[in-house]
């Protein structure tokens, strides 16, 4: 019981097992959120009037604290991973929809015209021009969603040990072992930073035309400041920056 990474039996996993579980519980929702956000965002781009109500709805969903969301879902999906993952997918969706909409909208009209001129149909134009140009904004959204998701998984501990690395918090407290609590917090933070860095790398690979200086223009949350400026202080703009809860 003395090794740094040894865990009590009631956690039922090795340290690496918990890391894997944590990544799965955090990132599957982000992926699901992205898959859902792409069509929703496209609809919002096509039908401009739809964007405001969609943003309103997502803002309300985002205002629900994660713990309450988990607890309410227990009645439907039990004390399972699914119960943790559904709210995280919703939060990811909320972060990603505006990111994608703004990214896709920011494609200059002359670029679209050029693509049409080259003979691209609307579908190919979307996949080959709009989406790639929007990639930096989408990845920025993914970064916020992933970091937030990784942080929130820990709260799942409260609904019957569904918090992966967060489960160490309970065990550490009950058995009076601060080591486990430190390990939980540090591991979760390192995981978040690693995934964040990986996404930055993905963006660099996806957008070779972007300058790669040490300072990609907005340092931490690209495009968000611009967005806030242009959107004005309506409720819409909040979601992007409301990272970890």
């Amino acid at each position: 019981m003395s090794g740094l990474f040894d865990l009590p039996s009631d956690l039922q996993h090795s340290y690496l097992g918990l890391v894997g579980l944590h990544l799965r519980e955090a990132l599957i929702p982000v992926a699901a959120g992205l898959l859902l956000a792409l069509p929703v965002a496209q609809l919002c781009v096509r039908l401009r009037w739809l964007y405001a109500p969609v943003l309103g709805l997502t803002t309300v969903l985002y205002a629900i604290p994660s713990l309450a969301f988990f607890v309410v879902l227990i009645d439907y999906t039990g004390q399972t991973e699914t119960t943790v993952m559904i709210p995280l997918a919703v939060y990811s969706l909320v972060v990603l929809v505006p990111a994608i909409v703004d990214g896709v909208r920011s494609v200059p009209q002359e670029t679209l015209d050029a693509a049409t001129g080259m003979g691209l149909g609307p579908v190919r134009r979307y996949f080959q021009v709009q989406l790639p140009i929007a990639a930096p904004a989408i990845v920025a959204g993914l970064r916020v969603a992933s970091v937030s998701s990784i942080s929130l998984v820990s709260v799942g501990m409260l609904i019957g040990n569904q918090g992966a690395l967060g489960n160490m918090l309970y065990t550490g407290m009950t058995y009076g072992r601060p080591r486990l609590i430190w390990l939980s917090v540090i591991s979760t933070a390192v995981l978040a930073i690693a995934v964040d860095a990986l996404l930055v790398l993905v963006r660099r690979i996806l957008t070779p035309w972007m300058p790669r200086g040490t300072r990609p223009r907005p340092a931490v949350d690209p495009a968000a400041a611009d967005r806030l400026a242009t959107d004005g202080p309506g409720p819409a703009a909040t979601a992007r920056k409301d990272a970890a809860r």
Partner: protein
Amino acid sequence: MNVLHFVSAFFGDGAHWHGYDGIPARLLEHLRYSVTAFAIAAAVGLPAGLLTGHTGRGGNVLAFLATAARALPSFGLLVLMFILFGFGLVPVMIPLVVLAVPPILVTTYEAVRSVDPSPVDAARGMGMSESRVLLQVELPVALPVVLGGLRSAAVQIVSTATIAAYVSLGGLGRYIIDGLYQHDYEKVVGGATLVAALALATLALFWAAGRLAVSPGVRRGG
């Protein structure tokens, strides 16, 4: 919809309206935690953001700090601070402040840095001191974005302050945690509704503040 049924049952129950576990008391506690944490976060984030934004230096350090702070899990930090400090407000304030400083810091920095340089140069040419340039030229122009950062921070705090209940403090999270252990969904849904309403009220407040504080010229230009 049974969720709506829970909501009406919760708010319709007279017992939920008075005493130390009543809605007014819990709401006040929640506000107290939120306002305190917000004040601390703003006191840290605003000056630092304004200064780094004005000088244009320290952006990378700032980005690193913000990323690190965002990566820290609020709930884990709460438990960690509890074992370090025991009962009280401190273990709750630390995760809330850590949560709220990055959006304030980063947006303030970005907002001030991206102010159009020509009026700034003009102000300097007129002989304004650096502090006057920052406060009378850059800040008014940057204000809408700065407010946006403050608003994000405030909403996050209101929503996250629920976890205070896990270390036995009050606030609206009390209803959610108690409801979980008592298997009382009415309480959980009622508590969640109150938190969401408070978060939306916070948004409205910042929207109104933006209307009042942002100079009409900037608003038109934005």
